């Protein structure tokens, strides 16, 4: 840097060094960028959470469409199917012919077919996984078969030379398809078919017109159950047990049949359905009636129920089971699509069960021709005679995809949903095949299922349920956020019910009545308490408090009312002391006396717990809560006591106040104080009497607090959680409220005292109203903390997602649910995204509460500064 020309010995260099300017600019830039980055990062949290949640609601998407012509399609198509990797598509005809091709390109493949021996097949059935089939013939026989598409993983060298390349992934040798998979391996998919020898079921010469077929048992000893209807409308339920003879290595099948009670004459059977356990047979007739047979006793089946499943005047086009066999899809020729559940509680049916219509789905544009159910969840395809193919989901009652066939309306000969729910296959009678490759990652979630009541399988009505996993494979996860939000709200409400009075009253006392030196100790101590880790509070609540409280519940309940009463009683007694003594003992000693009074009240509550239990709960509170002991007068009176005390106090103030004052207001202080004590005793007794009276009236009218605010007792319940959360929330509310009360300008306080007001009058009429918004902000911030509290709820709340206000019951909150379930949720699955939605809900809830508190706090600060 050039130095300036100096004219004298004391001239300073006024030019700034360049390095300083450069550093300044760098600092400017770094700090600006860094600051913006952090602010942005913090805002990105919400954006990220939202981005994970959005795919839940996007429904279904078609990724690509393939259309091609397949020649040589069987005349009567019985079934279309594909393998789980979408490599081979198959169509099976009623005459046993099987046509196979490469699914993505349409190249025909050579596949085995079923040799039915020239006999005409009049009925066809398959299991839901489309591997096992059955043919019913015109001569009264049935034959079982299987067509499978096994996939084997081989090393790269196993591809036979001369294999024709089909697309960039697959090659074929005309029979099987070889796909390249990551890791330099090859997957081979081929078609295998098997047909068993015929079994005579119906009298020879009577054709089988409908049948259904289920496989069970083990691989070594398969059991087949099937139901057949022959041309004479005779229904037979049969069981075939196959046993492998170890010596001769022959499968020996024994078939036993039992006849079902006959149908009314003239019934036109449209569909037969059988369950896996062979405990129910459904016969769907063309005019829309369903006959339900109870076949739990194989040798004595009976007709359990007759009901219509489509509206009058409409004809039934098909009955289908969804996976799990709990939901029954009934399709009509005017497009009606209904889902029926088999539920208990039916009156008028022989076995106490009845079919209940659970979902009425959107109408198909024309008569439904075919329905194909998913092999994994509750999705199903519906195709109508106009060629519309719709992908629906039963529980969430939505249509995910509407696919129309271009170029004229034709009914499809066969439709299928690929095993992994990622492809839709539709085949026309002319051999035109359309394959839609679809992606439907979260079909079961909509805003309705998350926040509304949903009717799940096996439940007797729509409910809000959260049950994310269970023991069986066919379980349907029930993901409604309502029980969790309710749990959060319940925990917050009960926690604040306990914490707000304690914290606010303590803050008022600390800022107005407490001596300065004690205040200097108490306030930092409370601030330190705010940093107590909630895991410690949760542990104490669950492992120490909960068992303790369980033993002394009546004493705890009684203590809630006894504590304030005993303080007031002690205060009245205190007032009896002569004035000089009072003045000397004010301050620290009074605080010490208050502590003594607290201990005394706690001890008294413990001692009086037993008599209280005897009077109010009939001697055993747990039995009373469960409902074994009658008599709700005592507890209702107890609940009404605070309200009745308030009413009596107000009345005593207004109506009787002047009268009592005139009677007792003269004389020495002692007389006045004694009169006040007597008056208080009298008013309390009146309050008790009023509470008991009103309780008797209410109980007589049928009111019972059990089932509402109280109910069956569980060890880890909301009472314990509320108390523990009080520990966490009280210091926060206390600190902020105390700050607010303290910031009220001193001159207001001095002016009030100078006008002759007592400290109490100043506190309630001047300080509190002025600081009201600050106090309110404190409560809001405490509420925000209570809403987000995780560890205490995880440990002490029982984690049961129920919707009850019962204080003696558990709950499951949003935060606890996330903490417990997220580590085990599959990445990007439905549960994973739902938990992110729960986190987002929590974020939004606390954000709103805190913003409100912040805005109010700023306004208060501005207003207080103006005073």
């Amino acid at each position, binding site marked *: 840097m050039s130095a300036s020309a100096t004219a004298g010995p004391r001239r300073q260099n006024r030019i700034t060094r360049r390095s300083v300017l450069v550093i300044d600019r760098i600092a400017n830039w770094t700090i600006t960028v860094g600051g913006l980055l952090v602010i942005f990062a*913090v805002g990105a949290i919400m954006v*990220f959470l939202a981005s994970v949640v959005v795919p839940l609601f996007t429904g279904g998407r078609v990724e690509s469409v393939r259309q091609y012509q397949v020649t040589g399609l069987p005349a009567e198509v019985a079934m279309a199917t594909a393998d789980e990797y979408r490599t081979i598509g198959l169509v099976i005809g009623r005459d046993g012919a099987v046509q196979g091709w490469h699914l993505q390109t349409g190249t025909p493949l050579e596949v085995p077919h079923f040799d039915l021996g020239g006999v005409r097949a009049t009925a066809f059935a398959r299991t839901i996984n489309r591997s096992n089939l059955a043919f019913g013939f015109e001569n009264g026989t049935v034959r079982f078969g299987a067509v499978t598409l096994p996939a084997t993983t081989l090393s790269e060298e196993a591809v036979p030379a001369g294999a024709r390349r089909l697309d960039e992934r697959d090659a074929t040798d005309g029979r099987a398809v070889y796909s390249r998979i990551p890791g330099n391996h090859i997957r081979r998919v081929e078609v295998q078919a098997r047909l068993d020898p015929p079994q005579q079921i119906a009298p020879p010469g009577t054709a089988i017109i409908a049948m259904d077929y289920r496989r069970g048992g083990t691989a070594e000893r398969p059991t087949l159950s099937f139901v057949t209807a022959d041309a004479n409308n005779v229904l037979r339920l049969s069981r075939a047990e196959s046993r492998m003879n170890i010596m001769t290595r022959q499968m020996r099948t024994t078939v036993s049949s039992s006849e079902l009670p006959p149908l009314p004459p003239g019934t036109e059977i449209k569909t037969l359905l059988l369950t896996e356990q062979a405990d129910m047979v459904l016969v769907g007739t063309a005019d829309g009636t369903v006959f339900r047979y109870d076949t739990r006793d194989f040798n004595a089946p009976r007709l359990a129920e007759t009901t219509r499943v489509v509206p009058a005047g409409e004809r039934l086009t098909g009955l289908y089971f969804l996976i799990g066999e709990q939901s029954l899809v009934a399709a009509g020729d005017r497009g009606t699509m209904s889902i029926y559940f088999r539920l208990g509680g039916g009156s008028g049916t022989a076995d106490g069960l009845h079919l209940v219509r659970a979902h009425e789905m959107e109408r198909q544009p024309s008569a439904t021709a075919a329905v194909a159910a998913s092999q994994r969840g509750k999705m199903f395809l519906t195709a109508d005679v106009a060629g519309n193919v719709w992908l629906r989901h039963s529980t969430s009652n939505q249509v995910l995809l509407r696919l129309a066939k271009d170029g004229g309306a034709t009914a499809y000969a066969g439709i299928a949903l690929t095993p992994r729910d990622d492809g839709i296959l539709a085949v026309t009678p002319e051999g035109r095949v359309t394959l839609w490759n679809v992606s439907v990652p979260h079909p079961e979630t909509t805003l309705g299922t998350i926040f509304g009541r949903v009717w799940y399988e096996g439940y007797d009505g729509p409910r809000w349920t959260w049950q994310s996993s269970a023991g069986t494979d066919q379980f349907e996860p029930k993901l409604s956020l309502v029980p969790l939000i309710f749990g959060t709200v319940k925990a917050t409400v009960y926690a604040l019910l306990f914490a707000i009075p304690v914290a606010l009253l303590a803050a008022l006392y600390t800022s107005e009545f407490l001596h300065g030196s004690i205040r200097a100790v108490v306030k930092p*101590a409370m601030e330190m308490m705010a*940093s107590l880790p909630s895991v410690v509070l949760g542990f104490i609540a669950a492992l120490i408090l909960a068992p303790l409280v369980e033993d002394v519940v009546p004493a705890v309940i009684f203590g809630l009312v006894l504590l*304030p009463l005993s303080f007031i009683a*002690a205060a009245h007694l205190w007032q009896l002391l002569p004035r000089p003594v009072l003045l000397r003992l004010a301050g620290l000693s009074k605080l010490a006396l208050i502590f003594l009074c607290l201990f005394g009240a706690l001890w008294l509550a413990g001692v009086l717990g037993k008599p209280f239990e005897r009077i109010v709960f009939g001697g055993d509170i747990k039995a009373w809560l469960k409902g074994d002991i009658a008599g709700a007068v005592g507890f209702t009176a107890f609940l009404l006591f605070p309200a009745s005390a308030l009413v009596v106090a107000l009345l005593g103030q207004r109506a009787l106040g002047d009268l009592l004052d005139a009677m007792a207001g003269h004389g020495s202080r002692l007389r006045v104080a004694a009169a006040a004590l007597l008056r208080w005793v009298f008013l309390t007794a009146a309050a008790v009497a009023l509470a008991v009276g009103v309780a008797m009236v209410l109980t007589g009218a049928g009111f019972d607090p059990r089932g509402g605010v109280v109910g069956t007792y569980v060890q880890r319940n909301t009472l314990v959680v509320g108390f523990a959360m009080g520990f966490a929330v009280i210091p926060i509310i206390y600190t902020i409220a105390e700050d607010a009360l303290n910031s009220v300008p001193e001159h207001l306080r001095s002016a009030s005292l100078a006008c002759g007001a007592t400290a109490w009058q100043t506190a309630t009429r001047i300080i509190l109203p002025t600081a009201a918004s600050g106090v309110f902000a404190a409560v809001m911030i405490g509420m925000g903390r209570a809403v987000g509290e995780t560890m205490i709820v995880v440990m002490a709340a029982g984690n049961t997602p129920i919707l009850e206000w019962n204080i003696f019951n558990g709950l499951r909150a949003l935060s606890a649910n996330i903490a417990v379930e997220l580590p085990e949720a599959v990445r990007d699955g439905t549960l994973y995204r739902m938990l992110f939605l729960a986190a987002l809900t929590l974020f939004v809830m606390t954000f709103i509460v805190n913003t409100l508190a912040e805005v109010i706090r700023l306004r208060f600060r501005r207003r207080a500064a103006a005073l």
Partner: protein
Amino acid sequence: MAMDALTPTRTAADDIPASRRQQKRGDIRPRDLRAEGEPWTWVLGGALALGIVMILGLLVLVFWNGALTFWPRPIEVVTLADGSRIAGEPTRTQAFRPEPQVLEALPPERRAEIEANDGFAARTLYRTGNYDLYGDDFRWVPDFERRFVERPREMVLLERLEWGVFVGRILAFTRAGERTEVTNPRQAALLEAHAAARARWAQIRRIERGDIGVVNHHLEAERLRLRGVLLRDPPPEERARAEERFAREEARLKAEYEALAAEAQRLRAENARDTIILQEIGGREVTLPLSAVVRMVVANDMTLGQKAGVYLSRWWEFLSDEPREANTEGGIMPAIFGTFAMTLLMVIAVAPFGVVTALYLREYARQGRVIAFVRISVNNLAGVPSIVYGVFGLGFFAYIVGASIDQLFFPEKLPNPTFGTGGLLWASLTLALLTVPVVIVATEEALAAVPRSMREGSLACGASKWQTIRNIVLPRALPGIMTGLILAMARGAGEVAPLMLVGVVKLAPELPIDGFFPFIHLERSFMHLGFHIYDVGFQSRNSEAGKPMVFVTTLLLLLLIFLMNIGAIVIRNRLKRKFQGSQF
């Protein structure tokens, strides 16, 4: 407030109706005690008293239970009504209601006693130990079943490596195969043999953990190197070279391993010949290797000094040793270490970002509605539940950023994730994000407290903005910044919920810091004190057995947090005093 009776002069009071003026001298006004609000004042005071009692009660409970856990208790031998005997440490007593069938079977005097007591009887929980023999470590003994209680001097409580504690007497011990009967549990020969066996065990552990661990580490590194080369699909000569190098290294390391394993085996064989033969109160004999006995406590025959010695040695084990028996015994050193490491990393991450952002908000940004909104948002974020940050940490840091890092830098370890799952780095970053609002708010308040006059003075002297900040503002704001950092540290050390999602485990196989490059392994899972409390309390085989451990851990965690808070207050006061005088 009240005034004594005034001397009667002609005042406006003379206009008051006569009835009210008929008051004797010495009367005290006002009559209305309600104005003093004494009852309500007592309710207010009562609320404060309740709050204080709650918190003090909690602290006393934790301190009492935590401090007393390790104090050695006597072993009582109880003879029951049916003649059988049990031996154990009395843990606690409780009142309970016996079942009707039990009441029927009692003699009439006992039943009358219980009836008189409202149906309640007392029972004591005894820690009988010997889980391998009894199937349970604790047993309730009702008072009415106890015939008499004694405290024999030779009963011993043995803490062992497996199966929890053993309660019984020592019959004999063998050393190098030679059996010696034991008459006095404090026999010098026994103690010497025990010490020697434990020394050998420590050496075995050193060989296995230390030396063999090094060999394993090198072997794994070689394997991963080979895999990395193969994944890149190299030309054949390179592949052959890599494979040959691997074979060579593998052979060498295997030879080393054999040698070490042989040494360990030799020591093990030696140790196997030193056993101790014990007998529990029911008469069954148990033989244990002497090296599996961690501590022998002759519970009924100790002086105060010896008890204090056992107490201190248990504390030392707790602070420096590793956990055993599914975290219900042993020490929590990995948890302490993990908590410290994570807190340190968190502070390193949060300090620059928090301070820089506060500087931007307060010094560089144009103050207006946008910045006010940003400030409100930052304040709100301090109140967002910690679990939301955990969710973000898992979803974004671990699954997205971590997975990308794995793809780029650690492809040979896939499909096992390195950074693609929870670990030390992601946990620290998540908690840093959680506590950044706290630091920003505290720093902003500290910066706001520096008077404008100082800034203006500095600028008037010709300093640039950065020079002003660096030399005038920041030093004076330092107390507030330090306070903010320490409060953030205290908050971060106590949060468990987000950690449950991003990297804390029940039992970490290794510490995040060890002797292999890069010395700090940020991808490893770690243990944490707060999570330890949750885990031992709720996920143990027996929560009764875990409770003492949880209390001590809670005590430690509370001490840690209080120390940090007190440190914050002390630093704040000291630095305030330092700069107090120089304000103008």
